[in-house]
């Protein structure tokens, strides 16, 4: 019998690299449980791999902004209902609107196109490793490597002047914090929107050889639509890969046998990236959908209007799908993990992220084979206070 367990979303970790253990207990007991939301709504919590794929592949579960609910308070407040997505902000839309925008971008993020970027990305990685060496040991990996590499890559792709990134980065930081009020988060988001809107206006006048200019030249989109698509790509391109690079390095350093295997056989790095994506699932509170109609799921009926949290961190640790799920194993077949999501909203930039991570981890441990933590592991500040998990800083030493 499912649907009898009532819970709030577990958010308390007992170890820094594992999801809250309560999620595992819930998955074992009831992979589809009732979830109490911050606004009083009684929705659902999905924690198994199988149900995660089922819900995310089912378009009767909507991702429209105005139907979303938040499982917990943010900044001590219940988050008010949200307005519909702005034109171009397609992550918060359903088909056919979502399809229209995403199709204009998918051709830019294909496996082949991203492979063509590999030499440039490897160059960017190499430049930052040189800068780390010049800085000397110890150094904080986050501002010297993990953040600037993906930041520079997405800025080049989109055509964002890299000099402008400091202000932008500060606002992204504010936006993803959970201890700010929702108004403060929205204010930070508004400043990012202004920044990109201004950039789009300039590109309308003098286009460059970049993605934002390309979208403008397609003739199918307004400036506002291009700006909102740009905001989405810029935020997504910055935070996710940056955090994976930093916490992925921390994780490998904490699992020396696994790191040794990757160093001994650099061809393992591709699979190590998939395994780190599975193991860490940095979208730490999973993703959310709302049923558009009554849907039968695991013997229950999810009613129209019911919201569902899909815990991708729990799904990626499901023992029915992954043997010894709580062990990091760079040899395991990790493909099929839901670290990039599943369904029509699965990460658009995932092929770019893969190449950045392969080049990033590969380059880092080739250049600094004796890289180690410069502080005790328990002193590494974890991003428990952010919607995207990771480390706030990672002091490392090398010879």
């Amino acid at each position, binding site marked *: 019998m499912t649907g009898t367990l009532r819970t709030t979303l577990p958010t308390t970790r007992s170890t820094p690299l594992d999801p809250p253990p309560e999620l595992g207990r819930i998955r074992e007991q009831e992979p589809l449980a009732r979830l109490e939301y911050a606004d009083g709504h009684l929705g659902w919590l999905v924690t198994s791999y199988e149900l995660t794929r089922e819900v*995310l*592949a089912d378009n009767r579960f909507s991702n429209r902004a105005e139907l979303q609910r938040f499982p917990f308070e943010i900044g001590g407040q219940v988050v008010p209902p949200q307005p519909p997505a702005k034109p171009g902000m397609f992550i918060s839309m359903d088909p056919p609107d979502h399809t229209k925008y*995403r*199709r*204009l*971008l*998918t*051709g*830019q*993020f*294909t*496996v*082949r196109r991203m492979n063509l970027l590999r030499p440039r990305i490897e160059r960017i990685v190499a430049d930052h490793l040189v800068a780390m060496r010049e800085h000397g040991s110890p150094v904080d990996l986050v501002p010297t490597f993990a953040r600037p590499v993906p930041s520079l890559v997405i800025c080049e792709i989109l055509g964002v002047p890299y000099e402008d990134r400091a202000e932008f980065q500060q606002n992204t930081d504010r936006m993803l914090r959970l201890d700010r009020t929702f108004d403060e988060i929205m204010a930070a988001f508004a400043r990012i929107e202004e920044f990109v809107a201004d950039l789009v206006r300039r590109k309308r006048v003098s286009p460059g050889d970049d993605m934002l200019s390309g979208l403008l030249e397609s003739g199918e989109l307004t400036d506002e639509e291009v700006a909102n698509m740009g905001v989405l790509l810029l935020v997504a391109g910055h935070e996710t890969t940056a955090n994976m690079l930093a916490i992925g390095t921390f994780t490998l350093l904490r699992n020396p046998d696994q790191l040794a295997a990757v160093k001994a056989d650099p061809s393992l790095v591709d699979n190590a990236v998939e395994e780190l994506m599975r193991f860490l699932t940095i979208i730490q509170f999973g993703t959310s959908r709302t049923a558009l109609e009554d849907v039968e799921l695991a013997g229950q009926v999810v009613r129209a209007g019911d919201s569902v949290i899909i815990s991708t961190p729990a799904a990626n640790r499901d023992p029915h799908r992954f043997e010894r799920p709580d062990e990091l194993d760079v040899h395991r077949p990790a*493909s*099929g993990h839901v670290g*990039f*999501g*599943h*369904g*029509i*909203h*699965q*990460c*658009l930039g*995932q*092929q770019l992220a*893969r190449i950045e991570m392969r080049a990033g981890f590969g380059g880092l441990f080739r250049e600094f084979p004796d890289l180690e933590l410069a502080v005790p592991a328990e002193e590494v500040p974890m991003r428990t206070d952010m919607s995207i998990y990771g480390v706030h800083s990672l002091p490392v030493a090398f010879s």
Partner: protein
Amino acid sequence: MRIEVDPDRCAGAGMCALTDSDVFDQDEVDGTVVLLTPSPSEEHHRSAREAAHLCPAGAIRVVE
């Protein structure tokens, strides 16, 4: 083995082309699935099944 693809359903995530680039490719313009080999040889059967399983949008069907 016969493979069927549905570009209308495709989300352009590229999992198929990543999994077996001899069997699947992506359209240059919109990134949707392009089937290179509708009846692949046996050595590709496993990866073709894997690609169908990985496809986030259910756009690939393998008929054995």
